């Protein structure tokens, strides 16, 4: 049985529909990352699961118990806030002990649990300090410690890394993953950063304007994105999109820029001439001697690789980004090819993947 089940959740704020029909279920010990741009509704969804907001319709079940109208204080869920929300007037120890004291644990139990968590997070030396005496990274760990000691049924993470600087973010990201695996607590993690999503999640839920765009494992999302939004969101630099038309009985696509691309994984249904969007990632574009010519606009050397920004010839002068290993090639014109095994086919109007 799933640990967390969210069924039919919708949320309206007045006239605006912030969440449309969200359904998901998490297995025990699983970490689901909800990812999307700002304003897509991910934080709202998290807060609904936490109980800090009420859904307009829908049901939340935690470990078989319907918690949809239960007060957050009674849900047995712990949350790590974006700005940590530590109690400023309490020491680190008291911050972590607070929830346990409310639950009536004995002094010894509390001390034991807090010390254990402090050990896990390297907070031992800070137990007597107040939040204002800590650095950002330390505060973040206290926030996590506060959640861990509760030993809840569910962890909620609300963009916990966004206030950290880049190097700290990378390190803490790995720590969170290790910790979650070790403790085996079911977790829901919200972020706008697709790298975090890819590295942390057992599964991803990509939200686009309140709508679930895709719910799948990271590799599945990367290799078979469900629509152009997901395709463009995951992976950096973003996937290139080229306008094309369906042709040859659904067996090929004619790029507006000229060349013909054959599908090697089967025909697509649809009329001759249907507008398509062909997607290909910058790292999959190949330099090919007699390929399609592009004019180079800008070269960005990154050291171990190079990003080339260019433009296909007319019509439309579609722009393109290519990621090449090694140094930049000479010249103003390059010729490239699109390997058939790496192209993604989307319907130009709906954006949905066509198989």
């Amino acid at each position, binding site marked *: 049985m799933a640990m967390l089940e969210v069924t039919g959740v919708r949320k309206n704020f007045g006239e605006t529909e912030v969440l449309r029909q969200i359904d998901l279920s998490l297995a025990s010990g699983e970490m689901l990352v909800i990812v999307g741009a700002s304003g897509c509704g991910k934080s709202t969804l998290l807060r609904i699961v*936490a*109980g*800090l907001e009420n859904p307009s319709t829908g049901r939340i079940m935690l470990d078989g118990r319907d918690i949809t109208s239960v*007060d*957050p*204080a*009674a849900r047995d*869920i*712990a*949350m790590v*806030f*974006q*700005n940590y*929300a*530590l*109690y*400023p*007037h309490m020491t680190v120890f008291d911050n972590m002990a*607070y*929830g346990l004291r*409310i*639950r009536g644990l004995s002094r010894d139990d509390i001390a034991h649990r807090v010390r254990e968590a402090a050990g896990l997070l390297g907070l031992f030396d800070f137990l007597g300090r107040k939040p204002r005496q800590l650095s950002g990274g330390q505060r973040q760990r206290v926030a996590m410690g*506060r959640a861990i000691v*509760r030993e809840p049924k569910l962890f909620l993470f609300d963009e916990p890394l966004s206030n950290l600087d880049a190097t700290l973010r990378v390190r803490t990201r790995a720590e969170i993953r290790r910790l979650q695996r070790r403790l085996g607590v079911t977790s829901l993690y919200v972020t706008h950063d697709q790298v975090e999503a890819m590295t942390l999640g057992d599964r991803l839920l990509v939200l686009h304007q309140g709508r679930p765009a895709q719910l799948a494992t990271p590799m599945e999302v990367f290799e078979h994105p469900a629509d152009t939004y997901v395709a463009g969101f995951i992976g950096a630099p973003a996937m290139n999109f080229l306008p094309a038309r369906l042709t040859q009985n659904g067996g090929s696509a004619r790029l507006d820029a000229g060349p013909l691309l054959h599908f090697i994984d089967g025909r697509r249904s649809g009329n001759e001439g249907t507008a398509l969007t062909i997607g290909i990632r910058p790292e999959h574009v190949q330099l090919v001697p007699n390929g399609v010519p592009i004019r180079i606009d800008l070269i960005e050397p990154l050291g171990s690789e190079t990003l080339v920004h260019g433009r296909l010839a007319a019509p439309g002068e579609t722009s393109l980004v290519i990621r090449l290993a090694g140094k930049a090639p000479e010249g103003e014109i390059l010729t490239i090819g699109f390997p058939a095994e790496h192209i993604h086919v989307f319907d130009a109007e709906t954006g949905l993947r066509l198989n």
Partner: protein
Amino acid sequence: MERRTIFGHQLLPLALVAPQFLLTLIFFLWPACQAVWSSLTRQDPFGLHSQFAGFDNFVELFTDTLYVDSIGRTAFFMAAVSAVSMSLALFLAVFADREIRGRTIYRTLLIWPYAIAPAMAAVLWILLLQPRIGIIGVWLNRNGVAWDYHLNGGQAMLMIVLACAWKQVSYNFIFFLAGLQSVPRSVLEAARMDGARGWHRFRTITFPLLAPTTFFLLVVNLVYAAFDTFGTIQALTQGGPGKATETLVVKVYRDGVVNLDIGSSSAQSVILMLGVIGLTALQFRFLGRRPPG
């Protein structure tokens, strides 16, 4: 003096500061010095000569039971007004902080009394509690309670405490509301997630975080009760019956203006001055600021 000063002019700033400086000199420092000097002198019965009397005036005050009584009375009054006013204001602010409909209207209706003059508050309360014309006062008397604060000292004290506390609730309300709103919402949410409900959450999280506001208001309320209440008390009871509602500031007025005992009232003024300085210094020590109004 914490910024990198920008302009190098010398005369101009002196000219700009001059008006305030002059006024401060003439209407603060000079009178204060005079008060200190007068408190150290004694006048003859006709007010023609005055001679240096050292701390005699002060000694006389502190051995005068009437004065000592006045101190006790004022202390009680200050504590009562502050306690009543602040608790009521906090209570209302907590509910006005919630997200309910009509919140703004409630707030406006609770803030407007700030505009009332202390003396005017007296007029309003007369309509409620005056024994012969006040709605509640008349009702009490008609129903067997002998209510007349012109005759009963205890009732008079009750009356002025109520009237003075009532008037100050708005001010406290404004600050408590602002204080409540400055408690970060996410901290309260974290407390909720940790399992803290209602009253427990208020007691362990909200109230401690409100401490600076509370302390600041306490000092302001004490100073208010000691000084700004003059108008209300004067209008309601004139310090009576007898001396039942004669607080220190009312006594200064009576002794200095009505009875023309300069030496004694100056000494009283100096004592009050020291009290205010003490309180304000305390406040600055802990908070580092003081508001206008």
